[in-house]
């Protein structure tokens, strides 16, 4: 009998086998949706780390900026057209911001100082952006108006809202586009080459400075794009970037730092692990699941599930 101990933890015995299964599927589905959003942020982070060895703690804040940019854009152009437009505008806007951040803040440090300094600089940036946003935008959370009025939709055994389904769709499209970019275009291949072995790439005639900028811009733009989707699914507030950053780091480590495919897998795995863990183990420690995973992975396989990159 499952009886007492489960209900004391807030988990009540299910009424029948069927509903147990459908709850499981539903939670997995929820996890995949959230996971896709995590992926967007994690991919940018791991890409930047792979190419430039920068662990950017302010990465999640780029998502936050993207979300706010989208919000202001939607005020001008409403409806679902405005929503999609805002994603593009946000990605471009954050990409531009990323360019300046990389060029004037991180680039000068790359040759001079150690890993620790770069992390600390990004922490400083994180504190600045988060509180600056609080000052400029106010601490009250804002919602992106849902062009579909939060309508829910049923698909076979699971259900969700129309808007979430679309977010999921757009995330997957973005991830696919990025993969195509990295494998099929010259610039993308150059990025991967630099990530694997910087000196060899230099010898092959690749302009490292340009690649650095490109990587950072693409990574940040992706984060900004993800921020809009994140903000649509949940809400937009100045501190919204903190948790996704930490989770993105967890995913990056899980998948291997610098490994983009690893980040994609990791993102979905984390999303599902969180919802299932929250459902079956404990709601309160849901956010800790990511951290527990990192620690376990790091202790057993320091280079992540898919093996890390070799340092050049």
């Amino acid at each position: 009998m499952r009886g007492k101990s489960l209900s004391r933890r807030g988990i009540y015995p299910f009424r029948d086998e069927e509903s147990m299964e459908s709850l499981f599927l539903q939670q997995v589905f929820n996890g995949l949706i959230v996971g896709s959003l995590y992926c967007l942020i994690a991919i940018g982070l791991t890409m930047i780390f792979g190419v430039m060895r920068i662990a950017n703690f302010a990465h999640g804040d780029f998502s936050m900026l993207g979300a706010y940019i989208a919000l202001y854009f939607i005020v001008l152009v409403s409806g679902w057209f405005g929503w999609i437009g805002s994603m593009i505008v946000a990605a471009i806007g954050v990409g531009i911001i990323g360019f300046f951040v990389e060029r004037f803040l991180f680039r000068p440090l790359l040759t001079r100082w150690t890993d620790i300094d770069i992390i600390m600089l990004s922490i400083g940036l994180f504190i600045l952006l988060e509180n600056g946003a609080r000052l400029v935008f106010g601490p009250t959370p804002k919602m992106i108006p849902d062009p579909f009025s939060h309508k829910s939709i049923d698909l076979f055994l699971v259900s969700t809202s129309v808007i979430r389904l679309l977010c999921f769709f757009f995330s997957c499209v973005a991830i696919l586009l990025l993969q195509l970019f990295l494998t099929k275009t010259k610039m993308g291949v150059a990025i991967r080459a630099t990530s694997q072995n910087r000196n060899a790439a230099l010898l092959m005639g690749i302009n490292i400075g340009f690649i650095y900028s490109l990587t950072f811009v693409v990574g940040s733009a992706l984060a900004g794009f993800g921020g809009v989707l994140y903000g649509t699914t949940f809400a937009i507030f100045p501190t919204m970037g903190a948790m996704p950053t930490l989770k993105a780091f967890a995913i990056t480590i899980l998948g291997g730092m610098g490994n983009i495919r690893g980040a994609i897998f990791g993102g979905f795995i984390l999303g599902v692990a969180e919802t299932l863990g929250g459902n079956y183990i404990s709601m309160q420690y849901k956010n800790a699941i990511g951290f527990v995973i990192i620690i376990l992975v790091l202790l057993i396989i320091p280079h992540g599930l898919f093996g890390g990159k070799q340092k050049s």
Partner: protein
Amino acid sequence: MSEKIFRIVLGMVVCISLFIYGGRVNAADPIPIGILGPFTGSIAFNAEEMKKGMMLAVDEIDAKGGIFGRKIELIFGDTEAKPDKGVAAVKKLITRDKVLVVGGGYASSVNIATSEVCQNERIPIVVAIAISPTITNRGFDYVFRTSPNSPQFLTGINDWLLKVKKPKTVAFLMENTDYGRDGEKIWSAQAKKIGAKELAHLYFEIGDADFTTQITKLKELKPDVTFNIASTTEASLIQKQAKELNFVTQWIGVGGQFTEAYFKMSGALCQYAMGSSLEPTLAMKNPLVADFVKRYEAKYQKARPGIFSSQGYDNIMVLMDAMKRTGKLTGDLQKDRDAIKEALRKTSIELTQGKIEFDKNGQVYTVFPSVVQVQMVDGTPQLFIIYPPERASATYKTPLPWDQRK
């Protein structure tokens, strides 16, 4: 090593001079009253509501000549809704600004700590907005509270559950703070009393934005009633995500979430939600309240006063009333504080929440919140009292499934 020490001393000299220069000069004339509140952070807008109500009270008193001819000066200490910052803020008010008494205060965890500090420092504190019973049941004679505590807030709902709704199954989705857990305890006991099955106890942190896991689970369990103690943001997000996941239940909260910001964020999504409220706009039959609402709207350009504004107003009025009844202020801080403390114990005054009188623990016991439900009027959500029948302005409506709602 010596360089370091030399530098410490140098640094200190600099700091000292900055400090002294930047310090407050205590003027002899206005009476300094310390006011605590989370003026930055996620519930800052609620604290602003409280502040607005307080400023209205100060205007009223100053217009009538102040206290013994002296104006009132409110000195605000920011607690950031965190206990340690709250303690630092109240210590500063006491030691640096040398306030006469302390008022305000929002959030139980902060106020449990700050009221203890005030008791140790022997300065009266009248807490405005916090419901944990602990604040006034430690035998601290300098601590008073003008807000009802959680058992008082929830008796109406408990009564209603027993006599009207009679749910067979209940669930809990609580903020993981004492605010949430205190209410959970009370409702859990009530559920046992009326024989309702407790299907799940789920939690979330302040600042969480993703409730899909919890709501999915609740949807599976289909409780008649879901108790949800949350503040404005989380409460609103929960309503939104409930619709997205097509989950319908009778939501019952304490009532602290029914702020203007909440209604703006949720719109029609919060229809049918219930709570226990002291909303002044629901008590317009009372001429005192109607007058308060009118003056508030006049001063703040058509802004609607909410529960926090009226609680802030009452808080200041009680302090002023007690000060007046001491007869005079000697100028000896400790003597005056003790006199005010004695005067506070004998308080009996009609204000916007109702009549304010303190029991032997400093807890107000004469204020009775009403059970309210959000119902739609011309497309905008509004609160209506639905219980007890003698105070009700509308009848209870069972929540309809989402596709049947207009």
